[in-house]
């Protein structure tokens, strides 16, 4: 049961609605008001805690802020000196140039590689999770750990032999090779994220259908799968984000045709004739914004996803 923690354990601090509830309390009847007033006394400890919180939030947001404003500066201002904390000449020039020159094909490739690998990884990951949860076969725990341990592997160790194999098959600089690797490295994550969701589905309906003579595959398709739609979407978002952010494999396996967005960014950074920082910032913003949007949907599962479910969120 312990892995199934995320959703329930953290509701207290996850649910943004509770902020709203607190503010509604201000207009609540008298007894509540009294309670509210007691809570707003500002002791030194409380003030200090809020100051620390404020500093931390500013520290988290500042680099992102800097990146965003740099993307709206012109290139000479981007690097200064002096450093400007708000663009002197607010311009969309970098976005125009990015759209014309540096954004493609990286953006499309990133999108395709992440999307296709996500669909495959989530499908086969869900099947594996279902198998691990529903069939208590011998070595089940060993297989589960073995699958999980793939995520701890250093990518460079696989990248070296994989590069040679792909070279011999004339598959370097293709999306196919990238997708294959992204599926491989994200399937363990998908298995691990899906397991607790599968466990939460009552097994009785499946058993009844099996007793009625339906084939296991049919039972899975008709009964289990529809119940797993939302968990699969959640898992898909994580897998998509990790594939979208991936850098090392793309760096080693792509040259021209299959370059992804992070590679487009890094090749701007390696420009020997001068680095165009405003361009880098613009592409980086393009790389970050979709992730921030997707993040909204999976926020409460973050701890599970980033710690293999080993820590309660």
């Amino acid at each position, binding site marked *: 049961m312990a892995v199934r923690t995320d959703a329930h354990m953290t509701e207290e601090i996850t649910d943004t609605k509770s902020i709203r509830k607190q503010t509604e309390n201000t207009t609540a009847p008298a007894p509540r008001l009294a309670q509210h007033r007691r809570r707003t006394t500002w002791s030194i400890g409380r003030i200090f805690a809020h100051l620390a919180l404020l500093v931390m939030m500013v520290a988290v947001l500042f680099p992102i802020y800097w990146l965003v404003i740099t993307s709206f500066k012109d290139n000479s201002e981007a690097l200064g000196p002096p450093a400007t904390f708000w663009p002197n000449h607010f311009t969309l020039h970098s976005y125009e140039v990015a759209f014309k020159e540096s954004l493609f094909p990286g953006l499309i490739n990133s999108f395709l590689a992440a999307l296709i690998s996500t669909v495959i990884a989530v499908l086969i990951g869900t099947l594996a999770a279902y198998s691990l949860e529903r069939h208590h076969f011998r070595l089940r725990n060993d297989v589960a750990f073995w699958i999980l341990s793939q995520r701890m592997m250093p990518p460079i160790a*696989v990248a070296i032999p994989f590069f040679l194999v792909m070279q011999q098959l004339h598959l370097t600089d293709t999306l196919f090779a990238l997708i294959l690797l992204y599926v491989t490295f994200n399937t363990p994550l998908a298995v691990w994220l899906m397991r607790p969701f599968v466990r939460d589905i009552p097994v009785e309906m499946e058993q009844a259908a099996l007793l009625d003579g339906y084939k296991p595959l049919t039972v899975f398709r008709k009964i289990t799968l529809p119940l797993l739609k939302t968990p699969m979407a959640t898992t898909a978002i994580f897998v998509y984000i990790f594939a979208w952010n991936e850098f090392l494999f793309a760096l080693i396996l792509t040259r021209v045709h299959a370059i992804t967005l992070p590679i487009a960014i890094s090749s701007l950074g390696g420009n020997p004739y001068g680095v165009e920082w405003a361009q880098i910032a613009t592409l980086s913003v393009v790389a970050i914004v979709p992730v921030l949007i997707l993040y909204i949907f999976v926020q409460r599962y973050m701890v599970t996803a980033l*710690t293999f479910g080993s820590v309660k969120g």
Partner: protein
Amino acid sequence: MQKSNTWIIFIAPTIVLILTMVVFPLFYSLWLSLHGWTILNRVNPPFVGLDNYARALADPLFWHGLLVTVIILVVALTIETLLAIAMAMLLARGDIVGRNMFRVLAFIPALINPIATGYTFHLLFHPNGGAVNALLGFVAGHPVNLDWIGSPSTALAAIIVTDIWQWTPFLTIVFLAARLGLPGEPFEAARIDRASPWLIFRRVTLPGLVPAITVMLLIRGIDIFKLFDTIYAITGGGPGTATQTLGFYTYLVGFNSFKLGYAAALSWVLNIILFILATIFLRTAGRRLLS
């Protein structure tokens, strides 16, 4: 019954995938590490036995890479963990406004593109138009022109600061959740006994946080041995070799010098280190993972 074999069909794709895409390449890499694969010897690389491993042990850059990795590991993890525990303690109060908002923000650094993060910090630490020098100059009252990325020790510091930025908020949330998940009675008892806050922290809170701290140290330790993207974007391993971690050096040997035999041997050393860390992790967190 046919049911008993269905699980094989369901789990087969995952297992086949890992066998062909991870296990086979790893064996291939083991084979490579025993051969002198270079750009000139790529068709029939000669068998060299354990020469590549012996070469690693005699290679100052190998030891340097290991040292750099360990420095990042120790410094970054110490600061991140202490800072996160302190923040979690402050946020564990029941009367914090904006805790939910912090939770929303806290995951963002760990989730956004590490290459974008790397270049953002490169930009922040840039000697001319970087915000770090501007802010330092504002505090000091005179212009500061520190070349952060250009000098060895500060370049390493820039990498460490980036890692701290990425992971401290995340760790804070983990430790905060662990703190809020502790049972309340021991705290009540300690308060009735008029124990000092420090004593309560040491004797009640900290022991309760130890499982979460251990697991996070292991996960972050594994992460740091795999660290690549931010180093590539911030320093490219430089200046000189100052920020070349073991993983980064392996990449350079493999894909800048194309000595893939030697690089494979280096990557196997990395594998073994991570295997040990991962085994400890699975042992430690295993009970909870298996539920």
